[in-house]
């Protein structure tokens, strides 16, 4: 009897020992429930055993669809129990679709969000902070440019990973054929606002416009970009005081109006496309009525597929030669990031997808294919980029000088105000100074209202 009990005990203990050694061995190799991925000095954990469906809400449409499909193919080869649904919308309506889905209680579990809108989402407690997940899986903030990573945080918490940079969104593209036609000296770069003004009369003689300066950014008005390029700011970094009506901003508004009137008398005569909240499309610029246009680092990729016949040069955003403080530095309220709504399903699968597309080498290949700079410094060090893109130095220059503008949760309302302000002086309902002062009061009221709420929490 005693013997039988001891054999039973031994078998039980032995079984337990073997079982635990089988479990312990891979666990020792994998760390805490994950597989170690080693990529060019970046070691992190992946969890290929997660299950679920990723609903990827994004606006990587058009020429980017095959790139996303490659992502999905590569991801699902590793994560065999995860299905990825690619939900593509157009960029201007993406946030509306996402907010509606969140309000309805069925949000996609990976959302491509403009970091300028992060405060709006985060303050309403709708996004999942990912700091714990980053720590668990050893994803480090210092893999990304500090400014890029910081713009994806709100009040000390990280709400997603950056994908493309906020920099290189405002560069000057110049049609070299048309430039030659108007008699601009070959090889001479266009560097200042005054250079653009000098092109007006020669362009008119050829039946051309220099450019539509109102279309210099998607989602924020041109005056915003011009003010920062002129050495000004729209508000203080602590988001307490409006400054767009200070001399740099007034000068930018006056120049914008003067340049528009010099070219065509009024804006409607030179508008490139009917919706001024959108940047110029390749097809619009390829009509070759405008010598130049502002656009971002994604534009060459689009031009290659939509208007490959156009020869162009790329220059940094021009500065105002009449103001010493003007350096042509561009500003941005952010760029794309990938976030997880708090109420979404399959959050584990969602996080694995985000790591894959934003922190792994696959993030590098995506931006490289578009000739866009990556928020991960390592991706931008690829020497191939300089070989295939003649304008890459312009991109990296813009990255190094770009000003990241902090935003408040009232950002959507603030943007609306900016467009109304620009309308007011562009269509000469008010003088530039009057418009900036009038709307500065309204902007200040919005900021004060939000700051007051902040203090009472």
């Amino acid at each position, binding site marked *: 009897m005693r013997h039988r009990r001891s054999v039973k005990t031994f078998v039980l203990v032995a079984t337990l020992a073997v079982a635990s050694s089988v479990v312990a061995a891979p666990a020792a190799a994998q760390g805490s429930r994950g597989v170690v991925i080693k990529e060019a000095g970046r070691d992190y954990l992946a969890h290929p055993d997660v299950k679920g469906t990723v609903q990827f809400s994004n606006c990587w449409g058009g020429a980017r669809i095959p790139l996303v499909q490659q992502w999905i193919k590569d991801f699902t080869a590793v994560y065999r129990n995860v299905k990825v649904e690619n939900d593509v919308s157009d960029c201007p309506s993406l946030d509306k679709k996402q907010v509606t889905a*969140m309000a309805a209680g069925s949000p996609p579990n990976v959302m491509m969000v403009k970091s300028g809108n992060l405060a709006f989402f985060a303050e*309403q407690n709708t996004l999942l902070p990912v700091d714990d997940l980053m720590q668990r899986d050893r994803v480090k903030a210092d893999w990304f440019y500090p400014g890029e990573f910081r713009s994806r945080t709100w009040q000390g918490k990280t709400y997603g990973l950056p994908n493309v940079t906020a920099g290189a969104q405002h560069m000057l593209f110049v049609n070299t054929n048309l430039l030659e036609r108007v008699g601009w000296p070959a090889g001479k770069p266009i560097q200042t606002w005054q250079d653009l003004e000098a092109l007006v009369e020669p362009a008119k003689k050829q039946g051309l416009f220099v450019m539509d300066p109102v279309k210099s950014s998607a989602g924020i008005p041109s005056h915003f970009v011009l003010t920062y390029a002129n050495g000004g700011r729209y508000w203080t970094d602590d988001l307490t005081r409006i400054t767009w009506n200070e001399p740099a901003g007034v000068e930018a508004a006056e120049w914008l109006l003067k340049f528009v009137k010099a070219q065509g008398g009024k804006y409607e005569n030179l508008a490139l496309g009917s919706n001024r909240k959108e940047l110029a499309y390749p097809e619009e610029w390829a009509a070759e009525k405008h010598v130049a246009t502002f656009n971002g680092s994604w534009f060459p990729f689009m031009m290659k597929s939509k208007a490959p016949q156009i020869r162009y040069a790329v220059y940094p955003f021009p500065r105002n030669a009449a103001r010493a403080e003007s350096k042509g530095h561009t500003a941005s309220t952010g760029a794309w990031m990938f976030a997880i709504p708090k109420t979404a399903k399959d959050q584990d699968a969602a996080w694995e997808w985000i790591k894959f597309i934003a922190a792994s080498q696959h993030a590098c290949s995506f931006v490289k294919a578009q000739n866009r700079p990556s928020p991960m410094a390592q991706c931008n060090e690829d020497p191939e980029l300089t070989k295939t893109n003649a304008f890459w130095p312009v991109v990296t220059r813009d990255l190094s000088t770009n000003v990241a503008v902090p935003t408040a949760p009232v950002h959507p309302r603030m943007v609306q105000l900016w467009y109304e302000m620009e309308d007011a002086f562009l269509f000469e*309902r008010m003088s530039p100074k009057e418009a900036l002062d009038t709307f500065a009061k309204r902007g200040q009221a919005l900021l004060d209202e939000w700051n007051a709420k902040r203090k009472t929490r």
Partner: protein
Amino acid sequence: MARREMLWGYAFIAPWLVGLLAFTAGPLVAVFYWSFTDYPMLSAPTWVGLDNYRRIFTDDDKFLLSLVNTAWYVGVRVPLHLGLAFVFALLLHRGLRGIGLLRTAIYLPSMLPIVALAVVWRILLDPRIGYVNYFTGLIGLPPVNWLTSEVWIKPVIVGISLWHVGVPMVVFLAGLGSIPDQLYEAASIDGAGRWRQLLHVTIPMLTPAILYNVIIDVINSFQVFAYAFVMTNGGPNDASLFYVLYIYRHAFELFQMGYASALSAILFVIILIFTVVLLKVARPWVQYERV
């Protein structure tokens, strides 16, 4: 027996009733409730009483602007739209061979989605590559910036909207078909020519259809949205900022659902007032056929 019949009646209309409650009455009540709240969509609504309405009537200059733009559109579009529909109906109310095909051809544009129409017209009206300026150029007219001109944008949108002339035309055609021939025979015997028959027989007998079309067209015209949304986003300089586009902007661009709901409630009241006034004003001149 009567009670049983009543129950069967309710049973048959139940699907429609459920749809009405779920998709019309329910949202209507919700909108009225939200109009008294601050509702940023991702957080719960907070009661603010009449604050939204106060802001609309005292602080919001775009409210009046969008209302004026919409009123202009309604005032110009409805007479043109119905006038054109009436003319087409008169022309197509004949027993000619192939008339069915013609009627179909004129009705077909009404089947086109408004968004598709707007996208196509955006290209046609482009000042540089669009066909409209190309053809006007052939007859010696200078190019016009149709979509970026504050002067032209509203007439352009009215013009495009006339493509949907088929729907009221069909109503007029049905009305024309129900006018007894004896009335025309009697008028003819009394020496009335075509024009007088039109004025004194056709139009009076068509007044119920006219009233119906006017009410429906006014209601629809007040809700103009897609053309401006697709082609101009309310520009240039808010010249095409229509009321419903303004509501949309507050709801889905500024995420102020409470404020947007208040704007919607005001539109509901305006349309209701118009409809009631039209019905009252119509009593003296609408002639319903007595059998």
